[in-house]
């Protein structure tokens, strides 16, 4: 049972132009009739569905290679055109050649002596591209050739192009026959000078034979009624063959020139729309129903075209998609997979003498019982479905070398992804955890890299099917290997919400009885209590320290600016808040990662997060409207502050109306006034916010804002004290009716109230006009987002397209696909951002360690 694999690799692709001879040589059939099928529904010989062009019907065999449906790739055919036609995509190139060469001799309009002097420059321009080169030659010709004269001084008419494809020499129309004859005269050297490839002749741009694409490329669909519906390309080709046939007959019958010309034009039209059905100045060819035909160019172009849709993007099997929901109790690198999905997706496993028993169990369970297996693969590559009927037979048959496609089990390697996949952390490797339910479960801490929430988001799961793929996924893509963002060198995964609040409260104020603490820690996965201080009452900091490695040292700061100090795995001072545990900051995590590596970090992070949530669950944590209460004195204080600000604004307005306001440099007086008012109002808002923050009672909402788990002081200030000025495009609100924002105000009222200043807070409720202003800015923000997304998406697409093939070479330089050096050392210091601390090496820490150590 020896297998031989021959892996062929495409090393290059040659682009070129078919000569008529080549088209004929390559063709399997000459197409002569527009009929497709005979009365029995069998393809006609010499028709467009000729069996020599490939098969699209089951049961038939390709006459050229003898292969069946889906095996035969199909073959080209050709038709002989009665009269040559211009290929629409080469119209410009033909025009340039005609303009730069002599009509009689086909010589280039630059004297041979002068060509030499320009040659170097032409070559140089040629580096910038084919079109640049042509443009440059055209410019030289225009400069050198005396107007309307060729080299020898004879008169030359100017060649004009009447779009889309009619050429005129002066007033005389050039037929494609003449153009072809002209182009034939152009010498090989001149053609080459224009940048044409070796053995490519310009006259091939005028078609005398047309290659017919294989039927496999334009399959017909059989409708339910048994009727056949042909592909758009076949329709178009049918038109071409029909007109070509008529043209032949008319020429042979010696029909008048006018009729022939008309048919010729029609042929030109059909051939043109066959290539491109969206040519300007040309009505697109349509179906009988008026629907525009999709021809060759349309198939290739655009996002839905062949290149971007089918070639650069691929579809995949072994994937699943469903709604996501949170589960803080599963690991950071796990994904909860519903049993239903686990029984549908499979992992292939080859039977060996060591795992035979184990795999047979899956087969015994069959496809309906978890954990079972759905298929087996025989060594000859044939696939068999496991069902109750076939099960016994298969069990009998199985031996080493067979592959069993078994259900997903815990620990299988999968890729988890959420769109839009904006960065590499949008697709990470998770280990499968089969769970009851119907949603994918993920640890809330990994929401940030995916940018996921649980308001109905769906995510995709993929299962790598080969060992290589699994190995790469596990080593390179596992969640813990992606903890540090390559964007800024800090952790993207961290504790969130309760994970932070819980630890904050724990390290700040909680004191636990020993049995409580042990219970709590055990719940979070701690099993070694040997280092627990021998006391009856444990400090929250001591409890937290149990999660840290014994030899961990760390010096940092918390959000309050206090020093966080950890020596030998004991939290000595400081609080655990967002600065240390959170995502996108998480310096503590960053240090753990550096010292203990990915998997230990994931483990510790998981435990810390669980500790936080468990602490909160036991202590209780709730937010209510009472959290927003302020004393009456504070209310008065805030009101005074706002009144004072409004007073100031009034003064400003008076100054303005009296013309006493001095304009700031580069601004009009109106602008100055607006800026000053905005400044005053914003200052008053900040001031009231401060007052409120000072006076608001110690509450859970405030705790959250303080430790950074949710909300900030602005949110609290807006709820308790004052919402503040609503700004539209960086200014106060001024749109709406003429001279006023709402008909409720007097015209030209510049007071804060009339221009979107909300002096109420969310708790007391907004006045109707204030609410309306809030809605205005809210809508503006929505619009901004809606407009921004496509813009930034396009920028991203351009960036990634331009930079996708830059890589670090073995010598440390950054090079593009062609080997051109872009940077001699990546980032000038060869550092990988995802391996640094915030973009640089943490030397401070080393210095501290060393100097501290020796002391």
């Amino acid at each position, binding site marked *: 049972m020896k297998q031989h694999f021959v892996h062929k690799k495409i090393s290059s692709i040659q682009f070129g132009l078919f000569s008529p001879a080549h088209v004929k040589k390559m063709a399997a059939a000459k197409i002569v009739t527009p009929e497709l099928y005979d009365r029995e529904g069998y393809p006609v010989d010499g028709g467009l569905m000729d069996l020599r062009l490939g098969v699209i019907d089951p049961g038939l065999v390709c006459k050229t290679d003898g292969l069946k449906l889906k095996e035969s790739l199909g073959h080209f055919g050709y038709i002989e055109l009665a009269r040559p036609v211009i290929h629409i995509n080469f119209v410009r190139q033909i025009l340039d050649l005609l303009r730069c060469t002599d009509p009689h001799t086909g010589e280039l309009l630059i004297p041979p002596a002068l060509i030499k002097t320009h040659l170097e420059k032409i070559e140089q321009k040629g580096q910038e591209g084919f079109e640049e080169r042509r443009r440059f030659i055209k410019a030289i010709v225009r400069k050198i050739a005396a107007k309307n004269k060729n080299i020898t001084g004879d008169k030359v008419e100017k060649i004009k192009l009447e779009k889309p494809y009619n050429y005129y020499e002066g007033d005389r129309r050039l037929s494609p026959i003449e153009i072809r004859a002209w182009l034939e005269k152009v010498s090989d050297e001149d053609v080459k000078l224009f940048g044409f490839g070796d053995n490519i002749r310009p006259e091939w741009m005028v078609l005398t034979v047309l290659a017919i694409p294989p039927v496999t490329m334009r399959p017909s669909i059989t409708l339910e009624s048994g009727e056949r519906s042909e592909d758009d390309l076949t329709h178009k080709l049918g038109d071409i063959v029909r007109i070509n046939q008529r043209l032949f007959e008319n020429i042979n019958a010696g029909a008048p020139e006018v009729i022939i010309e008309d048919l010729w034009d029609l042929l030109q039209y059909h051939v043109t729309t066959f290539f491109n059905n969206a040519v300007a100045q040309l009505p697109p060819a349509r179906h009988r129903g008026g629907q525009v035909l999709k021809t060759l160019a349309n198939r290739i172009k655009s996002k839905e075209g062949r290149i971007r849709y089918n070639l650069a993007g691929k579809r995949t099997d072994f994937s699943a998609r469903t709604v996501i929901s949170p589960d803080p109790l599963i690991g950071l690198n796990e994904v909860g997979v519903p049993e239903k999905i686990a029984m549908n997706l499979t992992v292939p496993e080859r039977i060996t003498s060591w795992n035979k028993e184990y795999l047979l169990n899956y087969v015994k369970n069959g496809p309906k019982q978890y954990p079972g297996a759905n298929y087996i693969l025989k060594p000859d590559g044939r696939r068999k479905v496991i069902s109750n009927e076939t099960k016994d037979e298969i069990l009998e048959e199985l031996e080493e070398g067979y592959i069993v496609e078994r259900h997903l089990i815990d620990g299988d390697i999968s890729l988890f992804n959420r769109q839009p996949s904006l960065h590499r952390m949008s697709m990470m490797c998770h280990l499968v955890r089969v769970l009851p339910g119907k949603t994918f479960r993920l640890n809330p801490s990994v929401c940030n890299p995916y940018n996921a929430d649980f308001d109905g988001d769906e995510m995709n799961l993929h299962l790598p099917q080969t060992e290589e793929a699994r190995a790469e996924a596990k080593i390179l893509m596992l969640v813990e290997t992606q903890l540090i963002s390559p964007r800024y060198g800090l952790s993207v995964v961290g504790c969130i919400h309760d994970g932070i609040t819980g630890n904050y409260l724990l390290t700040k104020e909680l004191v636990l009885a020993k049995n409580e603490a042990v219970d709590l820690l055990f719940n979070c996965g701690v099993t070694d209590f040997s280092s627990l201080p021998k006391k009856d009452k444990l400090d929250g900091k001591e409890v937290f320290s149990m999660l840290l490695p014994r030899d961990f040292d760390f010096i940092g700061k918390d959000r309050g600016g206090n020093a966080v100090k950890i020596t030998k795995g004991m939290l000595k001072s400081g609080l655990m808040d967002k600065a240390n545990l959170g995502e996108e900051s998480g310096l503590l995590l960053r240090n753990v990662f550096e010292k203990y590596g990915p998997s230990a970090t994931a483990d510790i992070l998981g435990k810390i997060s669980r500790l936080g949530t468990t602490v909160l669950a036991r202590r209780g944590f709730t937010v209510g409207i009472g959290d927003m209460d302020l004393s009456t004195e504070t209310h008065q204080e805030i009101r005074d502050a706002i009144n004072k600000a409004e007073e100031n604004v009034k003064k400003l307005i008076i100054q303005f109306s009296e013309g006493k306001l001095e304009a700031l440099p580069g601004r009009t007086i109106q602008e100055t006034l607006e800026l000053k008012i905005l400044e005053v109002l914003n200052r008053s808002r900040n001031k009231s916010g401060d007052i409120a923050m000072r006076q608001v009672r110690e509450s859970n909402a405030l705790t959250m804002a303080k430790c950074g788990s949710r909300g900030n002081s602005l949110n609290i200030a807006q709820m308790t004290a004052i919402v503040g000025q609503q700004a539209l495009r960086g200014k106060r609100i001024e749109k709406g009716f003429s001279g006023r924002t709402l008909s409720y105000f007097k015209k030209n009222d510049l007071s804060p109230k009339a221009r979107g200043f909300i002096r109420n807070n969310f708790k007391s409720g907004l006045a109707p006009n204030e609410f309306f202003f809030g809605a205005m800015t809210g809508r503006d923000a929505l619009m901004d987002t809606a407009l921004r997304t496509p813009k930034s998406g396009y920028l991203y697409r351009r960036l990634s397209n331009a930079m996708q*093939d*830059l890589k670090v070479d073995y010598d440390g330089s950054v090079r593009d696909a062609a080997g051109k050096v872009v940077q001699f050392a990546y980032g000038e210091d060869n550092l990988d951002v995802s391996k640094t601390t915030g973009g640089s090496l943490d030397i401070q820490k080393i210095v501290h360690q060393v100097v501290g150590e020796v002391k």
Partner: protein
Amino acid sequence: MKHADLIKEYEKDLPLAVLDEISALIPTSATKPQVKKIVEETILLYKQARVHAGECVGLVSAESIGEPGTQMTLNTFHFAGVAEMNITTGLPRIIEIFDARKTIKTPMMEVFLKAPNNKDIEKVRQFALQIKATILDELVAEYAINIFDQTLILRLHKELMADYGLTEKDLLKSLKTRTKGYNVSSGDGEISFTHKGKAEEIKELYILKEKIRAVKMKGIKKITQVLPVKRGDEYIVLTSGTNLSDVLELPEVDPTRTFSNDLYEVRAVLGIEAARQAVMNEVFKVIESQGLNIDVRHIMLVADIMCVSGEVKGITRYGIVSEKASVLARASFETPIKHLVNASLEGEVDKLTSVVENVMMNQAVPLGTGLPGLVTKMK
């Protein structure tokens, strides 16, 4: 520096920037073996943090800039402080830079002055007025046409003239070359033009009026607005409109720090390396103002590919993408038909060395783990 020599020994093992950082951070009390240990530890850390060969740094950079793009504001203008001028920021500015637009929305310069002058606000203000391009129109209080005498009379703002330090004579001097065929005379805050020789149509006076309106009287071309501002402990001049080459020639200007936000101008005046730095600075400014966190290395790489050819090239189908070696890579971006048609005429060969082509062919991409190949002898 105390241990400079010792640190210098490691020049081959560490990048200069890292060494500098070490010397800055080492406390003076550190002993020789301590310094040695610090440097050696750093080398270890550095080795761990080096990029691996085959790392697709380009894509990582593109992701790092593209991903936070959705978080940037679309608000075009931004006032840095109350008194400063409008500057394009946010996503529009980023797009403008990466497009390498020839004409940008808000061209701007920051003009730094040499040492003694930059501390004195009065001197800086004077300098600012000096460089501001003043056109005739600003100085004219009233245009009058005397139909009988066929003369055009300009009444001037006397105070403004004094502010700018201009006299009627100065105006006449710069006007005379532009008004051939007219007799120009001045006096008492007025300038009058009469046609030489025979009186022609009145219309011509109107044309003359429109013509001389925009004639520059003083200052530097294109600089439409100036604003002295405080930056740190010195005063600088912000200008809207840029003209680097002329401003740099002024003796008061500190040419080492003065810059423009117009990439093409920087390229023309200061060269391609300066342009590269300008791209980096400009992008960085926007990112900072948006409160985003993107490592310089990513911006550096973008700046580098925009400038490798020696000219500033935008990340557009006409710029960088058009220079790719692979036909299929170009075709997969934009305008595929054009690229395929040209490739066929040229007889181009696609060597399949970059990413998309290999995706299309279903082959391993030559990046990361797809890069190394193994050669083995078949038995």
